[in-house]
């Protein structure tokens, strides 16, 4: 029976690792949904209905966490006893900070209208590639049990991820969404 505090990987019968078969995850998610979704309990007691809502909410949260690489990385570190909320100066290398500053400057320097869209697209794929590379590093360090090293890479991932979101939102502003 599914529990509200069950480990997300156990919930989907998956082994605890950063590399995940997303297709399999989605299949397991759908199979679990059929068991707990409120639609199955529309004739049930208020108590069972509420439980269905809570279980499904938990299942949805678990799925969205494992589906997203950055959230999955944070979750893996957390269940292994690391506090991802706290970042110390040593966690971040000087070269990373410099690179971040450069990328940010090039984002700010772009014109505020549609003419920036092309450059934004380039910047987006540049950051995307860096993210992919770092994710591979994270996966390797985590798999070999180098948790401290994995946490350091995670914080780098966080930086890049945040930057990517900013690029996307500046795209949206220029597209008029």
């Amino acid at each position, binding site marked *: 029976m599914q529990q509200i505090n069950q480990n997300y990987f156990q919930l989907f019968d998956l082994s605890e690792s950063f590399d995940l078969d997303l297709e399999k995850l989605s299949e397991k998610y759908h199979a679990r949904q059929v068991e707990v979704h409120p639609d199955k309990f*529309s004739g049930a007691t208020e108590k069972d209905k509420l439980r269905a*809502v809570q279980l499904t909410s938990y299942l949805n949260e678990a799925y969205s966490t494992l589906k997203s690489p950055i959230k999955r990385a944070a979750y893996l570190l957390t269940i292994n006893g690391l506090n991802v909320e706290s970042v110390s100066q040593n966690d971040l290398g000087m070269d990373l900070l410099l690179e971040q500053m450069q990328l940010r400057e090039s984002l700010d320097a772009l014109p505020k209208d549609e003419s920036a869209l092309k450059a934004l697209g380039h910047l987006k794929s540049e950051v995307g590639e860096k993210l992919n590379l770092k994710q591979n590093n994270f996966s390797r360090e985590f798999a070999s049990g180098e948790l401290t090293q994995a946490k350091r890479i995670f914080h780098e991932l966080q930086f890049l991820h945040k930057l990517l979101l900013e690029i996307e939102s500046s795209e949206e502003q220029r597209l008029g969404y």
Partner: protein
Amino acid sequence: MALLKISEPGEKLAIPVHRFAVGIDLGTTNSLVSTSSGQDIEVLPDDAGNYLLPSVVQYSAEVDPVVGKIAISAAINDPKNTISSVKRLLGRSIEEVLTAPQFKHYDFDTQRTDSIPAIITAAGIKDSVQISADILRTLVDRAEKFLGGKLEGAVITVPAYFNDAQRQQTKDAARLIGLNVLRLLNEPTAAAVAYGLDSRDEGNVVVFDLGGGTFDVSLLSLKKGVFEVLATSGDTLLGGDDFDYLLAAWIKSEASPTTELNPMEEAELLRLANLAKHQLSDQNETSLNYLGWSGVITRAKFAKLCESLITRTISTCRRVLRDASLSIEEIDNIVLVGGSTRMPIVRDSVAEFFGKVPLTDFDPDKVVAIGAGIQADVLIGNKSVDDFLLLDVNPLSLGIETMGELVEKIIPRNTTIPAAKAQEFTTFKDGQTAMSLHVVQGERELVSDCRSLARFELRDIPSMVAGAAKIRVTFQVDADGLLSVMAEELSTGKTAEVQVKPSYGLDADSIEKMLSSSHENAKEDMEIRALREAQIEARQLIDAISSARSIDGQLLIAQEAVRIEEVVVELQLLVEQGTSVQIHELTEELNRLSSEFASRRMDLHIGEALRGESIDEVEQ
């Protein structure tokens, strides 16, 4: 649950009963009702064979409200009492409505404090919920007549982009006529179900739903009976009506009337524009006559007039693709829904954007009602949920106000529902005992740009130094897309909970009401606790007296014994039936009556103890 049902011997074996449930498409322009006839889902016609019920209600002082076709013809002569497009009023504040051109010929009641738009009609003041309820009642009557029995429930569809207030009000309208709402279902999702179950297609499907007054685009992944919404977006103030208004404005400017239009002329202008729009779906041009002016409008001219509206719909498609992280090439099919997708300019623009001809095998008017009927059949228990499952999302981000009037998003848009998220807050001043929370819905960063859903205050936080109190706020979005917020104070282990269902345009009064009702509950809880305490106290005394009498009964004076016995019997009765105060008072009296007896016992036992015998030995 069914496994636990045990039949009495001789009892008739339960035959699976077909339970009456319907799907209702409560539209801006037209509404429909569908039901399962055992195998298929049927859209139900009225006595004259019409499937569409125009969502128009005419109120008069003498008779019950008239809904549908007859009301439309009345609109020309009785515009102030004939309400159409009421769906556009749902969830809106009176201020928003007063400035909207399409509602200017109604007399709104501006005195109301609950800020739900209400119109002054010949039958009294009618608010948007009541008017919607009158449309629902007509559909329910139609279905019950067809089925020959009472309905047990309904699935009602709403635009995917409806916010919390609009959803709440739709549910309230059903509640007003005693209709059990099994689920609020998003219109594009309903359409996808009807389409997907029929075609057995799999892959990524875009549902483009342009109705009379609302617009939705949803992107779904269809896989092995699972309908998973990946992203949805829309505009609840964009629909076929807007094409009418633009055309009407053009006709007016061409006819250039010398005087202000009266309400009847306004109504006639809108009717004419609507008629011309429909004709342009079948022919290349149509002639117009209005207030002595005559002219011609071509399809191309109409397309030019409505260009901005089309641009808005395409921009929404782009946003949905982006939110789902899919490219145009990854879309397998496009399904058109809503009467307004009959317009060639709409079809052509969608086909051009996606580079694919949209599917039009379904009647765009009926497909949503059919999907709702299918879901109703499942939820009422006629059909198994194993056949298919819907996974929908919340269309708008939910958040709370933080310092500097900024919004902190708690549940972002396109999160699969049901969804729950907890966030912890703390006090920022020493001794702070109250905290106010402002829940908003929308994508913008500033509170003032989002829709306010609820404001509530959490009181009685234990007084502590700043930052010591821990308040956990839980947001829960249910399968209807409705939000409830719960706040708990955790620091002392004692949890205080306030549950507030966000409502439309909550003003200070209604919040006060909500809070005082939660205080009333607290009062009730206190009374229950006092009663329990009094009952325990009384029972303990009765037990003590009874055991004392069995030991030292000889110490009781006869008269005393009778009186005590009387009161014990009376108190035993009160414990079962009395209030905490009554029980407490009689317990006190029994205590007084027995105090002499108790002190005589004490004297005796002390004397015995002094003689070197233990109480225990004496008792034996």
